[in-house]
């Protein structure tokens, strides 16, 4: 426990130091024009006020957060629910593997944000297009990681199960899937981060609400304080989502707590 407290203290100290330096440079020394770098107090104030103020972009911070979160989670869950089983099946059944994997290799190198224009053309400007982008990137990563996880199943474990008389399907559920879970979660974690980031980018391009839209609008209004406040919010929510996923992983994936 002592070590953890020490690191926590160190982190808080770093945070404090940084904010103090920032404060020093702006409010006291006025090294940069207020346009370029607002003081931390201004940013905090803006952030707090934005929770309830609709100006300048027409939505409160709550509304933006909710819009972004809703979309990200929707695309993410759909992608995970479809991607994980597909990845598992692809890895377990040889025919599926040989047929689908080549297609997959073509889709994988395309960055998620590159899908945005295509989706916008298909679905028009709206929530569906953005959700589709998140979906595609999540599905790709979940398939990949689940696939690798299953492929890494140790032969020894399969043989033990088979010698006891387990059928192929039984082996899949009793051996392959449990042993692949750490990899599956790694895929989920990666997808979540990618989803959150792609969503923000998509919102910058074509949206009328959401955190990405908010900071892009703030940029056009040259409101640096709002941009930074938005970045802070984006970062915090991303971190919270990560935390939640991590907690779920710990609860579900036992046996690796000492890794």
């Amino acid at each position, binding site marked *: 426990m002592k070590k953890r407290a020490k690191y926590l203290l160190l982190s808080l100290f770093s945070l404090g130091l940084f904010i103090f330096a920032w404060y020093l440079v702006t409010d006291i020394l006025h090294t940069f024009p207020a346009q370029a770098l607002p003081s931390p107090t201004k940013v905090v104030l803006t952030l707090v006020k934005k929770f309830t103020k609709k100006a300048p972009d027409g939505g409160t911070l709550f509304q933006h957060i909710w819009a972004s979160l809703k979309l990200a989670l929707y695309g993410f869950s759909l992608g995970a629910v479809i991607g994980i089983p597909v990845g598992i099946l692809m890895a377990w059944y040889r025919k599926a593997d040989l047929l689908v994997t080549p297609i997959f290799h073509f889709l994988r190198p395309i960055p998620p944000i590159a899908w945005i224009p295509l989706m916008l053309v298909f679905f028009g400007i709206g929530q569906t297009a953005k959700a589709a982008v998140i979906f595609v990137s999540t599905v790709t990563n979940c398939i990949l990681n689940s696939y690798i996880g299953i492929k890494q199943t140790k032969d*020894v474990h399969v043989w*033990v199960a088979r*010698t006891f008389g387990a059928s192929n399907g039984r082996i899949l559920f009793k051996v392959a899937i449990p042993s692949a879970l750490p990899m599956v979660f790694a895929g989920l974690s990666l997808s979540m981060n990618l989803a959150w980031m792609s969503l923000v980018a998509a919102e910058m391009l074509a949206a009328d609400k959401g955190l990405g839209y908010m900071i892009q609008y703030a940029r056009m209004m040259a409101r640096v304080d709002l941009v930074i406040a938005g970045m802070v919010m984006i970062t915090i929510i991303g971190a919270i989502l990560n935390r939640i996923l991590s907690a779920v992983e710990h609860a579900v994936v*036992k046996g690796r707590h000492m890794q």
Partner: protein
Amino acid sequence: MNKVEVRNLTKSFGDLLVLDDVSFDVKDGEFLAIVGPTGCGKTTFLNSLTQIYDIDSGSILLNGEPVNLKKHSLAYIMQEYSTMSWLNVRQNVQFGLEIKGFSRKEVREKAERALELVGLTQFRDYYPNQLSASMLQRVAIARAFAVQPDLLLMDEPYGQLDLELRFKLEDELLNLWRKLGTTVIFITHNIEEAVYLSERILVLSNKPTAIKETIENRLPYPRSVTSEAFVELRNRVTALIKWW
């Protein structure tokens, strides 16, 4: 009827001929030890029996029919570590029982008894990454014992264990064997162990492997390692394998 009938078993890996036209029987309820040089195909034989490998020609029959892992009751304790890292000790031991379809109550009870047998009761909630190598092997042994198999295959299971534990487990194995009437095929490098446990010893040759000799072991149980007859038999087997 013979429990296991091996007929003209031949197995190669690419160009390498490992098992060369091997034939022998294992009687029902017999304790057979197989000794041979490293890499001569002992493990290959067990893997062929359990259908991990496909054989090139010949046949292996169990109870007069081809091996059917679902129908027949086998347990195989492999040389490599085979505990499942995502299950704790208790769940690992229950693994075979669950696949065989025992009721929940039976699964728990049989697993508990097996754990007692190998002395791991107080470690039942531990995970493999918290255990030592010998404990992991004991988990595999408990897992095999728990299903009380018809045919028990063991590939140098006690190699990693200290002497005291080894003796204890050897005696427990004999107990179990007698109580259940299990047929046991036991592979080992340790001649003393082979002589201590088995009713018959199969000595294998180098690759391409054939049966060099079969030695009957009629020493009465319980055996004393220091008795004249024991030592004589041990020397006899050792002489056969001196060229290893």
